[in-house]
């Protein structure tokens, strides 16, 4: 790989790469992020390679292995360019057929995506409702670039924003542009990014400044940052170079949790390539500007996503938050001014510098500009990674993109913001997704987890689940956070077991308020949110547990009993399914459940086609 010594060198390389590309050549794009590989994308890649070689098609069909495209429900998926044909859930058996079809410029009707309601086959990816309703500014890159090939990224306009910034030669302009774009931190709190950059730029530059990319994404059910890191690592590197130029920082750190091996692998490759090409290091492209970037792997503590704990972790100490002020931007890593932004925030930077602040502002709503990536999971038909403009309503996301409930029952609530967020009931799905509205509703934007729940989800159980997570992931420094989360869990556990009295709710609320008030970092301050929001919107469920010893959703095992009603035709399906042999009954006669043996797993209810299993 050549080293680029000047900006002209870069532009020549870019022009050559663009000229060499022939967009007309059919390309097989295999989505091979962590989710894709887990569902078998590696087999598809192997077969595709073998087929292309054995049929001597390597010149005629290109193969591109990319990060996650977002439609996790349909992995492993294959996208064919330029027709943009989308084949979901491809099996190794079908892969050679797809290769043949592409060679013949044909479409395999039977493998296309079928609309779940109309059963109609949809040919191109862009017409599938899941993709159609999104604005894929960031994620759109994932299908275009092979994350381990820097030329691929440059070919699609990569590092162009950096070159634009470097050739302009005015760091003040960079900050003005970011400020004008109204970009806010995507890590959850929504602090204006431009303002943060300006503060860092204003710090005395005697002993160096640091930039940090926070890739310690630990929320259960969230994988936005992982997909960006895996699918397009260069966009983050580019964003950080621009940030360093604007703020005068000379060293950067990518902090990524070690549970993301693929992201780390791709980042290591991307860093090496960027150094080799001369886009990182000293005297970048002959401009005299230097920036070093290295990777630090997190050791798996949720709390290290908090910025002061993250700094401690990089320094090699125990990941414990410390008092702010002084803020990291004043006194951070090794006592030097440090700016920490989320992965998604950094990924947005090249886009703003490329298209300009004004065009960035066209997407989204007042004070909440741009797009936001969410991981839509839970009881919806289309789970996956979605990118939507801010200001879209929850209903549009859950029903429009998610396709509504995947189970037999209606959607009840959506949980946003991970363990720090809250549950928003379906009656409030007209709520727009922006930092302020979600906060008013008792939740937070968070980094972007979105868990959809239906009528068969018990809200007390949900609160208990998150409290269990938090009591283990609290760093334990603040007494109120350590003991508070543990005590809240105990009370919730009592409620779900039917052991609690009505006073427990008062105690729970009192304790939640104290934990919110008296803890140091955002983890503790937001830890009561799952409890408080479910208490606010689903108090009736709590009371049902306490007063009537009933779990309306049929989840809390101590409070429910399964029985069989007269809808039963005696088909014996449940008898065969029951793992503890608790169901007895002759053929064509109503069956009976032995309550002493029943472990309340609900398997019988899932298999029964006649709704003959009741939960009480």
């Amino acid at each position, binding site marked *: 790989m050549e080293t680029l010594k000047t900006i002209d060198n870069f532009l020549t390389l870019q022009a050559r790469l663009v000229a060499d590309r022939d967009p007309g050549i059919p390309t097989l794009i295999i989505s091979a992020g962590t989710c894709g590989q887990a569902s078998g994308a590696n087999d598809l890649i192997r077969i595709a390679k073998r087929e292309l070689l054995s049929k001597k098609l390597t010149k005629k069909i290109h193969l591109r292995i990319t990060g996650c495209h977002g439609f996790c429900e349909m992995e492993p998926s294959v996208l064919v360019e330029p027709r943009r044909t989308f084949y979901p859930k491809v099996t190794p058996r079908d892969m050679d057929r797809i290769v043949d079809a592409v060679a013949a410029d044909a479409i395999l009707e039977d493998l296309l995506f079928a609309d779940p309601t109309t059963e109609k086959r949809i040919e191109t990816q862009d017409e599938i409702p899941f993709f159609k309703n999104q604005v894929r500014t960031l994620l759109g890159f994932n299908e275009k670039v092979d994350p381990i090939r820097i030329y691929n990224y440059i070919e699609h306009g990569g590092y162009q924003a950096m070159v634009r910034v470097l050739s302009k030669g005015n760091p003040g302009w960079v900050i003005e542009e970011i400020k004008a774009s109204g970009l806010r931190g995507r890590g959850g709190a929504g602090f204006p990014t431009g303002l943060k950059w300006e503060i860092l730029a204003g710090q005395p530059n005697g002993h160096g400044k640091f930039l940090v990319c926070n890739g310690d994404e630990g929320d259960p059910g969230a994988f936005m940052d992982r997909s960006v890191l895996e699918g397009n690592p260069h966009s983050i590197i580019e964003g950080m170079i621009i940030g360093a130029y604007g703020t005068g920082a000379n060293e950067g750190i990518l902090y990524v949790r070690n549970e993301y091996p693929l992201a780390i692998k791709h980042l290591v490759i991307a860093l090496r390539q960027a150094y080799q090409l001369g886009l990182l290091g000293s005297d970048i492209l002959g401009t005299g500007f230097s920036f070093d970037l290295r990777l630090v792997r997190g050791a798996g*503590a949720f*709390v290290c996503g908090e910025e002061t704990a993250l700094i401690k972790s990089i320094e090699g100490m*125990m*990941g414990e938050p*410390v*008092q702010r*002020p*002084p803020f990291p931007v004043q006194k951070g890593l090794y006592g030097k001014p440090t700016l920490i932004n989320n992965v998604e925030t950094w990924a947005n930077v090249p886009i703003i510098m490329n298209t300009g602040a004004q065009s960035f502002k066209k997407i989204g709503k007042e004070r909440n500009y741009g797009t936001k990536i969410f991981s839509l999971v839970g009881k919806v038909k289309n789970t996956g990674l979605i990118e939507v403009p801010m200001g879209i309503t929850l209903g549009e996301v859950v029903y429009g993109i998610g396709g509504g409930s995947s189970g037999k029952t209606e959607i009840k609530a959506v949980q946003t913001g991970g363990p720090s967020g809250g549950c928003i009931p379906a009656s409030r799905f007209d709520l727009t997704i922006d930092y302020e509205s979600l906060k008013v509703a008792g939740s937070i934007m968070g980094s972007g987890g979105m868990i959809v729940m239906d009528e068969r989800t018990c809200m007390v159980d949900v609160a208990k689940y998150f409290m269990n997570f*938090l*009591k*283990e*992931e*609290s*760093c*334990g*420094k*603040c*007494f*109120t956070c*350590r*003991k*508070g*989360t*543990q*005590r809240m869990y*105990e009370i919730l556990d009592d409620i779900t077991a039917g052991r609690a009295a009505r*006073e427990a709710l008062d*105690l729970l609320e*009192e*304790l939640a308020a*104290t934990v919110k*008030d*008296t*803890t*140091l970092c955002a983890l503790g301050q937001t830890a009561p949110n799952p409890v408080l929001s479910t208490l606010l919107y689903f108090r009736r469920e709590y009371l049902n547990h306490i007063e009537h010893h009933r779990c309306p959703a049929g989840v809390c095992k101590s409070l429910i009993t399964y029985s069989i009603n007269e809808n039963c035709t005696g088909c014996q399906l449940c008898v065969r399914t029951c793992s503890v042999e608790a169901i007895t009954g002759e053929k064509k006669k109503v069956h009976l459940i032995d309550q002493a043996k029943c472990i309340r797993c609900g398997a019988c209810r899932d298999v029964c086609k006649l709704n003959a299993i009741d939960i009480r």
Partner: protein
Amino acid sequence: MVTLHINGLEVSAEEGTTLLEASRFYGFPIPTLCHLDGLSPYGACRLCVVEIGQGANAKLVTSCTYPVEEGLQVRTASSRVVKARKMILELFLASCPQSKTIQDLASSYDVRQQRFKQEHDDCILCGRCVRVCEEQMAAKAIGFRSRGEKRSLGTPFDLKSEVCRLCGACMYVCPACQLRCTYTEPDKAICGGCANLSPPCLEKNSFDDMMCYMEPCVACEIKKD
């Protein structure tokens, strides 16, 4: 010098001092367990919370870690502060009921009930011993391990530390049970007014999570076998 208001009184304090130091200097008492003069502020026990700011921006911060700021409005005993401290003390009572210090504090704040499941811990993980070992004794023999509810205190791998000089400072600074191991005759030892009539080190079996790292115990000069 920085000028700020503590409980309505305009006071000045040197830049870099904490709210706790300033408040105490001007005669406003603030209870703490984890703070000790001479050790770095840590902010673990949260008892020293005070209210700062006005209106909707008012919030609670720990006075031991928060630096004085120009024009800051501080309330050391507002109803919000007292309510929080009461709940914190109730949590302390639920975890470490036998500490005389905690009992006294709870009593002074009129905490009359304890509504949680009773536990019988000795340690409140305030970190005084860890800090005294590191900062004053330059030994770093003990430290925190794990996180969340599993957080505990001890030497690495629970082995006798090679850097421990048996100075006893860790025991000396412990706020939860200050009178432990102070006497040479076990039957005369009065440990914190709690139910233990003998120093816990003699009953190692019944005190698994005992915070004593001395071997042999130099404080009471009793050799353990």
